[in-house]
C-alpha cells in the first residue's frame, strides 16, 4: 500500500518536473539550452548528500543501539547513494564540457567534492566486503559512515577555499528567476521521492536476504 503511494508520487513528481524543465522554464540567456542540465545537477548532488546523511544516521544508531535494522538502513542508503553520486559526476562532466570546454575541471569545488564523496562511498563498501566476518564488516562500515560524513563539510570548505580567490563560475549571473526556482524545487522533490522509493526497495530486499538466511538455517 505504502509502496504504491510512493511509486505514484515519484512518477507524478517526475512527470511534472520534466514538464517544468523542458516546457515551462524559459531558456537561459547566457548558456542556452544546455543550462537545463542544472535541473539534473542540483537534485543529484542533493541526493548524494542526503543519502550519506542517512548512512551517517544509520551508522551512528547501529553502533549505539546495535539493531541490525540500522545497519540495513545505512547499507541500503549507501547503495542508492553511490548510484546517484556516480550520476552526479557524469552529469557534472556533461555540464562542464559545453560550458567550460573540458570534460573535467578541478576549478569547480562542487565537482571535486563530489568526487571525494564518491571515494568515501567506495571505501564504505570496500571495508564491508574486506572484513573478516560480516558483523565486523557492518561495524567497520559504520565507522566509515560516521567519519566520512563528519568530513564532508570540511572537504567542501577546503575545496571551495582552494579555488576561492576567483569566485567559481556562477551558475547564473544574477539571481534565480522565480520560474527557475520552482523548477529546481520540483526537480529536487521528484528526485527525493525517487530516493525514498529506491531506499525502501533496497531495505526490503536486504530484509529478504536476512529471511533467506534464516530459512536456510532452519532447513539445515
Amino acid at each position, binding site marked *: 500500500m505504502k509502496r504504491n503511494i510512493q511509486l505514484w508520487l515519484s512518477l507524478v513528481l517526475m512527470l511534472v518536473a520534466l514538464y517544468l524543465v523542458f516546457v515551462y522554464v524559459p531558456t537561459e540567456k547566457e548558456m542556452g539550452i544546455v543550462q537545463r542540465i542544472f535541473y539534473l545537477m542540483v537534485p543529484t548532488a542533493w541526493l548524494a548528500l542526503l543519502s550519506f546523511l542517512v548512512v551517517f544516521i544509520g551508522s551512528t544508531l547501529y*553502533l549505539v543501539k546495535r539493531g541490525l535494522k540500522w545497519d540495513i538502513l545505512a547499507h541500503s542508503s549507501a547503495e542508492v547513494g553511490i548510484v546517484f553520486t556516480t550520476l552526479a559526476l557524469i552529469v557534472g562532466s556533461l555540464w562542464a564540457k559545453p560550458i567550460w570546454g573540458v570534460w573535467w575541471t578541478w576549478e569547480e569545488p562542487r565537482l571535486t567534492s563530489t568526487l*571525494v564523496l564518491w*571515494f*568515501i562511498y*567506495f*571505501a564504505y563498501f*570496500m*571495508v564491508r566486503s*574486506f*572484513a*573478516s566476518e560480516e558483523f*565486523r564488516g557492518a*561495524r*567497520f562500515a*559504520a*565507522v*566509515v559512515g*560516521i*567519519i*566520512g560524513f*563528519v*568530513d564532508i563539510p*570540511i*572537504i567542501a*570548505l*577546503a*575545496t571551495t*577555499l*582552494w579555488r576561492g580567490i576567483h569566485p567559481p563560475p556562477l551558475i547564473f549571473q544574477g539571481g534565480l528567476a522565480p520560474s527557475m526556482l520552482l523548477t529546481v524545487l520540483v526537480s529536487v522533490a521528484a528526485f527525493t521521492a525517487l530516493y525514498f522509493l529506491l531506499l525502501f526497495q533496497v531495505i526490503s530486499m536486504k530484509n529478504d536476504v536476512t529471511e533467506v538466511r534464516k530459512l536456510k538455517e532452519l532447513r539445515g
Partner: protein
Amino acid sequence: MNFWRKVIAITWKDVLSEMRTREIIFSVLIFTLLVIVIFNFAFGASQQLMVLVAPGILWVTFAFAGVLSLNRSFIPEKEESCLEGLMVCPISREVIYVGKMLGSLLFMLIIEAIALPIFAVLFNLPVLSLQLVTITVFTTIGFVAVGTLFSALAVNTKAREMVLPILFFPIVVPIIIGAVEASSLALSGKPWGDLSPWLQIIGAFDAIFLVVSFLIFTFVIEE
C-alpha cells in the same frame, strides 16, 4: 593523571620496540627520501617549476610515508596478539588509541624532521622556517588522528595494505589541500596572516577528528 600514565606506557612500549628493531623509522625514512628523489626526476630540472611543485611533492611524500608508517602501527598488535593482551588489561580503549596515536605521531615527526632538511638541500628551498614546521606538525597530527583509527580497522581486514590508503586518502584531502597551500605560501615568504585560513582548516580537522576518532576507536577493536 592515571590516564596519561597508562597512555605513556603504551607509547613507550611502541618506542622501545621501535628502538630495538628500527623497522618503521628506517624503512619509511628511506622510502620518503626515495620518493622525493623520484619526484625530482619526474619534474625535470627547471628551478621555477620546482618552486611551484615543491609543496605538492612534499605533502604527497609525507602522505604516502604516513600510510606506510601507520600500516605498521597495528600489525604487531595483530600478529603477536598484543591487542588481546592489551584489552585484557584494566585500561580503557581510549588509552590504547591515544597511546598508539602518540607513538605514530612521534615516529612521523622524527621522519619528517630528517626529511625536511634533506628536502631543503635537494630542492634549494627554505623549508626550515617556523611556518613550515608548524604546518608539518599540525598536519601530521591530523594524519595520525584518523590514521590510527583506520589502521586498527584495516589490520582486521583481508587486504590491509590496500584498505588503509583507500580509507585514508579521501578523508585527509582537506588537510592535504591546507598543507600544500600553506606550504606554498610559506615557501614564498608570505606572512602568517596569509597562512591563517589554511591553518584554521588544518586545526579544525585535527580538533574534530581527534575527538571523533577517540570516541569511535572502541568500536573498531572490540571483539
